[in-house]
């Protein structure tokens, strides 16, 4: 780790503090865009230089062109809409379920131990293995996708909440207890804010897992959405079309993350991880 790395973490790193007024560091967005451009360049080069054949992995420019064509098609937006619908409903269901169960189970030592083995058993079961069950229950409709999305993203949030609940500061908890805050009030005012950073990480993980599962389910089951379009493009041999859709998937992921970051900054402004970036 460089000196830079060390100072960058303190509340007010001197070298940065001093440099800032003179030559403004590139803003966050600029750096982010630079990162994306770097990645696209690499992607452009790999097929062009011949590391893999452009026939199998088309260069970035070609894929982007295909994506731009897609942007003009309603069918594309319908598919995006279907996928996002499954994503949003599934994610919300998973979060609600995981938060409720996580707080209940997390705050009781007994429940924690009691459910531990079952949780550990169920967690690694791949959603894809549940496809026959999902189809059996719901057919090739959005409900099947939902079931898989909820199942997979539930655990992401649930585990994070368990850890977050365990991270409550004793002094803060005792303060709350001594002021007569009841169990519900303590959850609301102490446990929840403490677990919030964990929860946000969990939600961010779950948001992309939900997207992955929504697409995978559509891909494997064939329920409507981007995933089915990918499968169609794939089985039709439309390689750049397929990568354009994959690119679209990734972009959706980036957008989702931006939104999540925004929410996080709003809700966690008091947290030291955010704090240290606001001051100075």
């Amino acid at each position, binding site marked *: 780790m460089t000196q830079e790395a060390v100072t960058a973490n303190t509340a007010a790193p001197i070298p940065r503090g001093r440099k800032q007024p003179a030559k403004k560091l590139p803003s966050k967005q600029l750096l982010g865009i630079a990162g994306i451009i770097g990645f696209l360049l690499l992607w452009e080069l790999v097929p062009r230089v011949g590391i893999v054949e452009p026939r199998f992995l088309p260069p970035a420019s070609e894929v982007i062109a295909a994506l731009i064509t897609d942007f003009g098609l309603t069918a594309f937006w319908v598919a995006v809409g279907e996928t996002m619908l499954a994503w949003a409903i599934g994610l919300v269901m998973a979060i609600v379920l995981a938060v409720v169960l996580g707080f209940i189970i997390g705050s009781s030592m007994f429940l924690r131990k009691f459910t531990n083995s079952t949780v550990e058993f169920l967690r690694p079961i791949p959603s894809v293995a549940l496809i026959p069950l999902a189809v059996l229950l719901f057919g090739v409709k959005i409900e099947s996708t939902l079931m898989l999305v909820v199942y997979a993203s539930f655990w992401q949030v649930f585990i994070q909440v368990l850890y977050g609940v365990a991270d409550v500061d004793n002094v803060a908890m005792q303060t709350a207890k001594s002021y007569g805050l009841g169990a519900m009030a303590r959850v609301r005012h102490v446990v929840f804010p403490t677990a919030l950073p964990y929860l946000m990480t969990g939600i961010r993980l779950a948001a992309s897992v939900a997207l992955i599962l929504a697409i995978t389910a559509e891909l494997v089951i064939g329920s409507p959405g981007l995933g089915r379009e990918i499968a169609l493009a794939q089985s039709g041999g439309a390689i750049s079309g397929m990568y354009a859709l994959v690119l679209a998937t*990734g972009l959706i992921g980036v957008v*989702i993350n931006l939104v999540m970051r925004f929410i996080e900054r709003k809700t966690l402004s008091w947290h030291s991880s955010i704090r240290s970036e606001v001051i100075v």
Partner: protein
Amino acid sequence: MRFLKTLGYVLALPLILVAIWWASTLGETNFFVPTPALLAEAFAETWFGERIVSDVLPSIGRLVVGVVSAIIIGIVAGLLIGSIKWLRDLTEPVLEFFRAIPPPVLVPVLMLLMGITDGMKVAVIISGCVWPVLLNTIEGVRAIDGVLSDSAHTYGIHGWARVKYLVLPSAGPQIMAGIRQCLSIGLILMVISEMFASSSGLGFTIVQFQRSFAIPEMWSGIVVLGLIGVALSFIFQWTERRVLRWYHGLREVENAV
């Protein structure tokens, strides 16, 4: 006595659930939901034999390699990205992009680049389970207590010493939360990696059972996955207890009474 208590905790809920399952499958028979007895039979027949050596062990081997690499990559990258702000800004969108790509569509690309090899399967596993470790490490590093960080700073604790004495322990609880997720995602990806371009392995076998409608066998394979998951998680929790001894002491000392 203590052992019995632990055993009770481990077995109580599973037993209750199996009982419920047994009771609810008593009357009708659904082709896709076998009874516990049928499943147990299929389990014994399917997995106590050469399958362990030919399918299960190689899969577990790839899983372990993948998970361990993911943990190392996740922690190292997380430490860097978490402590260097410009690096975080630079990489975040690209990482988010990759995180959103479903492994099944990543497989063909990896196959192109790496061939149909174990390396490709390991890469699929890494590509999926590095995220929880990475994200949690980044968050953990960012959340270090200011006073503590200042203390280390004034005592001239820099570079590697800072990582070792301050950053890693402090981010430890969150990194551990990430690793725990990583384990089960790894197992899921092990199956996915064997769904494509494969001819053996635990995941492949399960998918094969599924396709050939050997339903009890398929469920028994899922049980195997679950059991591996439980085993991994118990190993993990045992390790965590030791690594985060201070943390559990700190948190539980007063809850104990």
